[in-house]
């Protein structure tokens, strides 16, 4: 999977690239409208991460180039403008998703995976982790082939864990994934503890292993290592 990051802030570019490379993506970057335009016209990418505010132009203007030269690639807009108009505009122009700065790598990862799933026509919508399999089409979860019933939030959390397996996720990160704009809500994270416990119980009751490790009471890690 090849990813192009269009972002002018070098610190952000490096952090994103090194994370994505760890996740086995091939990462390229462009720090200006001009360079990005060139790369998009010349090469093929599976995913393009696009910052709207570029020093020499509005990133939205690149969407046209993407549609012309890279029609198969997934497009995620990354913007500091938490503006609904921009979001609607971007999605109308053909972007697959919109991520507001500051974001977390685990969230970026989960968005990229979602776009890839959506883009792979006829591809498998099944995500497997040992005995657990998640069908993202029907939003159902099976353990050892038996379906377990999860609430919508529990399903979201489990999928987030599996996609970000082997990563430490703080309760705040999980809350943010669940709430997006309404992160103000998360005054305390007790409800995450409740959800996580429910997921554990449900998986174990069908003979599944408890892969959730609590990290110092402040975060979780979904891992079989």
């Amino acid at each position, binding site marked *: 999977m090849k990813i192009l990051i269009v972002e002018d802030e070098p610190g952000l570019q490096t952090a994103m690239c090194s994370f994505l490379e760890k996740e086995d993506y091939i990462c390229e970057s462009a720090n200006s409208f001009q360079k990005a335009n060139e790369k998009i016209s010349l090469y093929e990418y599976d995913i393009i991460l696009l910052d709207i505010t570029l020093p020499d132009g509005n990133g939205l203007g690149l969407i046209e180039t993407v549609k012309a030269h890279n029609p198969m690639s997934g497009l995620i807009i990354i913007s500091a403008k938490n503006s609904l108009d921009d979001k609607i505009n971007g999605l109308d122009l053909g972007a697959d998703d919109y991520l507001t700065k500051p974001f*977390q790598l685990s969230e970026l990862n989960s968005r990229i995976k979602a776009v890839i799933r959506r883009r792979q026509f006829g591809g498998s919508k099944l995500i497997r982790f040992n005995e657990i399999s998640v069908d993202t089409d029907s939003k159902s979860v099976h353990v050892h082939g038996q379906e377990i019933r999860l609430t919508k939030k529990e399903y979201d959390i489990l999928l987030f864990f599996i996609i970000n397996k082997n990563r430490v996720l703080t309760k705040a990160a999980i809350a943010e994934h669940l709430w997006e704009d309404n992160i103000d809500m998360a005054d305390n994270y007790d409800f995450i503890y409740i959800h996580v416990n429910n997921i554990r119980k449900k998986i174990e009751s069908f003979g599944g292993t408890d892969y959730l490790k609590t990290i*110092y009471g402040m975060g979780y890690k979904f891992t079989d290592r």
Partner: protein
Amino acid sequence: MKFLKRINRNYLWLFTSILLVLSLAEFVVLKYIMLEETKESFYDQENLIIKQVKETGETPNIFPIVEVKKVSRLSMNRPLFREIFVEDETDGELEPFLEYSNQVEINDEVYFIRLRHSVVENDDLMILIAWTFFILLISTLGISYLINRRLNKTVWADFEENLRIMESFSFSRNENLQLIKTTTEEFERLNTVVGSLTKRLEADYLAQKEFTENASHEIQTPLSVVLLNLEEILQQEINKETFERVVSTIDAVKRLSSLNQSLILIAKIENQQFIPEKVQSFNTTLKQKTEEFASLFESKNLTLEIEEEGVFEMNMHGQLADILIANLLSNGINHNITGGSVYIYLKENEIRICNTGKPNALGNDTIFNRFTKGNEKSYGLGLAIVKKICDTHHLKIQYTHDEFHCFTIFKIPLES
């Protein structure tokens, strides 16, 4: 009061008073002229009589208007005028007459001449003048009404149209203020002034808009770098103490970011960058939000009760409606006690969101101020944003507390 109505009213008073004064003057002048005319005709008649007496020696007598008789000696040295009343023979009414008496010497004899002339009655004169006055007034008003109606259709039409354009104008729609050209100098001047004022305001508006957007970008981008790097540190093998430090640093950075976003949001609301796009049903918004927050209600074991007596609808930008409701709900959840309740009441012009909580967490007046904190974790901007949204949408918000802490939003009736 409309300008033309005001002008018409002023005209009415002005005309009435002018006409009253003029009528009085008319009365005096007419009276004087008629008297003078009568007097002159007396002199003419007298001359005719003298001529007749001289030539024929006959003394003409027509009662009651001409009386000529011989007298023994000259007893008057000048002619005498007086007003008398003579009974009319046909209807027995007393009619006013002007009487002229004089003594003249004709052919060495002295004659006494008395002439009378009926004059117009004061009453008749006044009625005549009153009628003239009335007709003048009516015709003036009628004409001014017709003229105004014409002006309204021609001269004022452009003005009214321009007013309409200005009323519906908004900077956030990115359009230019296009006023209709008028041939009236004053209106054209007004258009020029309004045009240049709008240009200046638009420049301010755009500068402010650009600032909020840049401020957002310039601050959020470095904060993203900080957060991403901190997140990567968490992935390494670190001890509990370091982990705690990193997590609390992440919290602080997020707080900073959310604070920045809230402040920018307030600035955007103040700058009226959110155009009300369509009528929002707050009943629907509330139900969506309570569903979204269901797990938060659960985690604090809160019971939720929604009572709908009517549908609260309002023209508002969708994002603002969402923020308004989400902030009030999160306030009701965050400041609640475990096992407490949230009660929502909706009717056509009122939304009330009440929650159980600790007794008087905040004073009534300070609660909507920026950075007023109820507990150490909240940023104190949620309610300030709510207040700002209310202030810019003809809504009034009130905080009351007794057993429950209640936020009530009322629609302020629009004055026509």
